[in-house]
């Protein structure tokens, strides 16, 4: 393992090991936190029993819908805004302040608009994720070398083809950053929304366990969220590095 890999592993293993020891020696009460090894063991049995399969499936499918919608909408909106500079000038300051708006405050409105099903959660996840895609895509599109656009025009590409075959691929590294953030924001949005009023999902079950002092359920589910989000983001990171390697001199 490389030196950097060792440091990275140590940065995870040491705090987790310390937490394990503090819990095992009673410095931290099991009412506050259960030992990490206990979290893993409980999570294994939870997954084996399949008791929360429906909740896990609901959360992950809602996250997936939210991510895909945010990616598509973000790409389309950013591409349109890039081609309409006058409109973009109007919206640019609003984009800069977007994340200062507490999206969760609109949850009642979401319920009014979309009912009590999964849609309000998906909408919250989407609203949090979409702006990351828009901002990063615009950032990437601004950096497309003009000479590539000239080459496209020499090859007589239509506006749509220039967007799809030149602008977006050229901006891909920035778009990828937007996608990674969209994944993270979708998880944050949906699991957070499930905490508030949902009647299913991982967020709802964590909240339910918390209200019932059920640490043997709450912590494994938190661990599950951590593992899923980290795995997805690390996979995206590896893919991104693979793509970027082609562009590095």
């Amino acid at each position, binding site marked *: 393992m490389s030196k950097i890999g060792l440091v990275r592993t140590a940065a995870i293993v040491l705090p987790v090991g310390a937490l394990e020891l503090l819990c095992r020696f009673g410095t931290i009460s099991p009412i506050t936190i259960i030992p990490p090894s206990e979290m893993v063991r409980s999570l294994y049995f939870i997954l084996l029993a399949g008791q929360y399969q429906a909740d896990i499936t609901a959360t992950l499918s809602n996250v997936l819908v939210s991510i895909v919608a945010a990616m598509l909408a973000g790409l389309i909106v950013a591409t349109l805004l890039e081609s309409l500079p006058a409109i973009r000038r109007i919206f640019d300051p609003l984009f800069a302040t977007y994340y200062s708006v507490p999206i969760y405050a609109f949850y009642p409105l979401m319920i009014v608009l979309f009912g009590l099903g999964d849609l309000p959660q998906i909408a919250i996840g989407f609203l949090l994720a979409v702006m990351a895609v828009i901002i990063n895509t615009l950032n990437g599109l601004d950096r497309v070398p003009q000479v590539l656009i000239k080459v496209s025009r020499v*090859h007589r590409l239509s506006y749509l083809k220039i967007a799809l075959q030149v602008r977006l*691929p050229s901006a891909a590294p920035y778009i990828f950053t937007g996608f990674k953030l969209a994944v993270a924001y979708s998880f944050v949005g949906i699991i957070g929304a499930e905490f508030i009023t949902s009647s299913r999902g991982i967020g709802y079950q964590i909240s339910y366990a918390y209200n019932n002092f059920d640490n043997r359920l709450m912590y494994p589910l938190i661990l599950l969220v951590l593992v899923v989000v980290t795995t997805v983001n690390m996979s995206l990171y590896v893919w991104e590095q693979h793509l970027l390697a082609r562009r590095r001199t």
Partner: protein
Amino acid sequence: MSSADSMNTAVAEAGRRDAEWVAAAPGVAAAVHVALRDVARVFPPRGTQPALHALGPIDLDLIKGEFFAVVGPSGCGKSTLLDIIAGLVPPSSGQATFEGRPVLGQVPDGVGVVFQEDASFPWLTVFDNIAFGLRERKRPEAEIKEAVDYAVGFMGLSDFSGAYPAQLSGGMRQRVCIARTLVMKPRLILLDEPFGALDQQTRLLMGDELLRLWRETGATILLITHALDEAAMLADRIGVMSSRPGTFLEIIRTGWSRERDSTIVSQESFGRLTSRMWTLLREQSIRSIGYAKGHA
């Protein structure tokens, strides 16, 4: 009539006389391929920047099959001239025609352009970069492979067909861009300082290859360059431009045979050609870089 007008009239007449000369030259067809009439380009004011008169008015005839080079000081509008002929920017006044049809709003079919900057697509391999235009034209994959393989070999990129541009040197990337243009078999090739990123030896060799290609394809070539020796070696005629707003000071006929190659650089007449160009350009270059006249 102002002095600028009379100069342009004289240049236009010189251009037409040159056209007659080129028509009489062996192996060169007579038709006017590209014609510029009173072409000028003024960039509109932007913010606190006033309007900028970048080019013209210019009159020029490019004869089908000729190799025409344009030299001039920095910022004299050489690249703007190329962009207007290519249809990438419209002239502020006047008209450009290609094969008798006005160049309006888009790049005409049959025109290929190689730019000064690295214009390779970094997300595509060398092969896919070169095949880009052919795939756009929906040519059969077998035909694409044959054309690209030939171009890759011709450009000395055979070992790098599957490489990405980032893995190549600047000169190799430029060769990819040249190959991407040449596989389209354009009837008019516009080259905007294509060898700027190459070392002197490679430039001479690429010049030889360009001349060979020019002879084989019969394409008309317009080359924009800073390098006087490059223009003198490659072109049938050389348009020497003034500082901004660029107009032609003189159009020089090189008098080389069509079968020329880089060995002509050792000829005495080659030295006279570059010397003539420098005599015309020296004061213009001093003016363009903002030196006071007294320093010249």
